[in-house]
């Protein structure tokens, strides 16, 4: 198995791409706005104060020099500058808010994988029956309903009409959990507070459903079609000929090769999910990095914008590598340099 070189190559490419991304972000946050110092302090700040900030931001130097200072600060000291809104270093804000987003993304991914595979298998098993059609209709609707619209409908239903699930935040106010990892459920469990852990889980359900619905049904469609394709292959007929029970054929022989396209598409789903998380976190008041990022954008908090976008690019790249590794472990053709290995 040539697993090592495959991953190494992937990592090297990502480092290059992330450096490129940092240039793009630098251009967005430092060059496009014209005068970030004036923007930060507002139009009524006296000129000498603005000049002072310009010096602090190294704006008296040339653009490549500015970029170099910004990048080395970020890489060597983890210093992404100060947020104008929270008045704290952006890195500290990121540390505080990132776990909440990761928790949300993690649960959304679990929902997507679970429902995608479950409904996909169901649709393939009952191909062209009503279950299949129903899943297809949901897939169509799922792609057409933006997560933020779904989130608004969820709020309307679960906050007012049928309040069975908590709608806002990560934890009900009666619980206090000491912060260890930042992952609410994990922290509650570490503190031995099972009730709080359950409460934190309930808070996760609505936001992650709002994010998971569209990708889950897309995944179900892809799983279905790849399973249906594989069903007509010789090895399945052979297995049937040996009299192996249908259930065993489905789960033991059919599912694993059929999951390759499902997992490959996950990369794109994650992109959509992280993007939509910016709106969903805002609506559900989820104290994550996306809500932090969107607030930074609305207040033109440039350091916070560049910091949060950079971190999200990092998380996204890492997840894509993870997806590639899973695909490679499912599909020997990829890791041996076949169809997808460049």
């Amino acid at each position, binding site marked *: 198995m040539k697993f090592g070189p495959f991953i190494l190559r992937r990592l090297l490419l990502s480092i290059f*791409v992330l450096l490129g991304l940092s240039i793009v972000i630098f251009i967005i946050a430092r060059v496009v706005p014209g005068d970030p110092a004036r923007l930060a302090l507002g139009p009524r700040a006296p000129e000498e104060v603005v000049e002072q900030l310009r010096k602090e931001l190294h704006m008296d130097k040339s653009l490549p020099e500015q970029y170099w200072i910004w990048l080395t600060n970020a890489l060597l000291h983890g210093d992404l500058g100060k947020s104008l809104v929270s008045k704290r270093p952006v890195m500290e804000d990121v540390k505080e808010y990132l776990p909440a987003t990761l928790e949300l993304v993690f649960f959304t991914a679990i929902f997507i994988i679970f429902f995608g595979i479950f409904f996909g298998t169901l649709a393939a098993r009952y191909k062209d029956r009503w279950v299949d059609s129903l899943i297809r209709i949901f897939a169509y609707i799922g792609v057409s309903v933006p997560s933020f619209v779904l989130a608004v409908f969820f709020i309307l239903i679960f906050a007012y009409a049928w309040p069975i699930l908590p709608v806002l935040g990560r934890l009900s106010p009666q619980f206090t959990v000491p912060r260890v990892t930042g992952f609410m459920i994990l922290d509650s469990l570490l503190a031995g507070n099972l009730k709080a852990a359950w409460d934190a889980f309930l808070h996760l359900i609505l936001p992650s459903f709002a994010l998971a619905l569209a990708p889950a049904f897309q995944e179900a469609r892809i799983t279905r079609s790849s399973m249906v394709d594989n069903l007509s292959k010789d090895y399945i007929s052979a297995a049937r000929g040996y009299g192996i029970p249908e259930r065993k054929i489905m789960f033991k022989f059919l599912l694993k090769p059929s999951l390759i396209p499902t997992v490959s598409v996950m990369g794109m789903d994650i992109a959509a999910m992280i993007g939509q998380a910016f*709106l969903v976190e805002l609506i559900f008041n989820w104290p994550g990095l996306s809500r932090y990022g969107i607030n930074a954008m609305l207040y033109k908090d440039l350091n916070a914008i560049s910091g949060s976008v950079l971190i999200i690019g990092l998380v996204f790249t890492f997840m894509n590598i993870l997806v590639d590794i899973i695909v490679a472990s499912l599909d020997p053709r990829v890791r041996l340099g076949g169809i997808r290995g460049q």
Partner: protein
Amino acid sequence: MINKNSLKSTVEKPHEAGRWYRFWDRISRYWYSFSRNKLSVMGLAIVVLVIMLAIFAPFVTPYPEHAGPFVDYKNASQPPSVKHWLGTDPIGRDIFSRIIFAFRGALVMAIVVLAITVPVGTILGLLAGYYRGTIIDTIIMRISDIFLSVPSLVLALAIAAVLKPNLMNSMIAVTAMWWPWYTRLVYGMATSIRNEYFVIAAELNGASRFHIIFREILPNCLSPIFTKMALDVGWVILIGASLSFVGLGEQPPTPALGQMVSDGAKYLPQLWWLSVFPALAIVLVILGFNFFGDGIRDMLESSR
């Protein structure tokens, strides 16, 4: 299932194969493969309806003046009724009229974004694919990788945020994010078509690079490009609605779908019609374009 009309016309009167005749024959074949799926026809109907409503908005809406800075406190916050089909907002503007006018911004955005990104992305993809393995390929494809290394919506939000919030700048933001998808799509096709015999034959005949790229390779990439375009309209509208939802799109008093949902969400649940109807309008438009796009895909795939 065979379309009787097209079969009869080609088989019985082959000698009449004039220009118009061939044209109509082709149209009817396209229509046949498009209309085999009833959902595509439904999508087409929705798309035509939305476009017509948007174009003729001042004539078809009951209160066209409500799509601007209009105030009528007497009729404020009315629930849906015969007079105001979808109710009115807290300053008395008719929601139905505002939704119809909001279609305009959404459609303009989709048209402008695709009209810029599709040619740009396609040409870059063609160049990178034709000059595969050279520095041109590396530069173009690595730059597109960079743009794809962060979710499109996130970078579009960031670009829109540092610019002044309006429809124009949200279009710029989405355009900047959209071209790499086409570059990647065309690149994949161009690299394989480049090695086909007809391209090599053209090269041996001394055809210019321009001719090979645009007359030999490009026509063979068109069908997937058009398919992706048709399916992308719904996506662009969705991204546009997302931008305007957070206030980075069209600014009030001009209506935009996302902006109406987020403004209305403040008045939930009493004034539910403020956000529910614009939300349903977003879903309807995107659903329509997705069905339509699927139909176009079926049509172009079956004609190949």
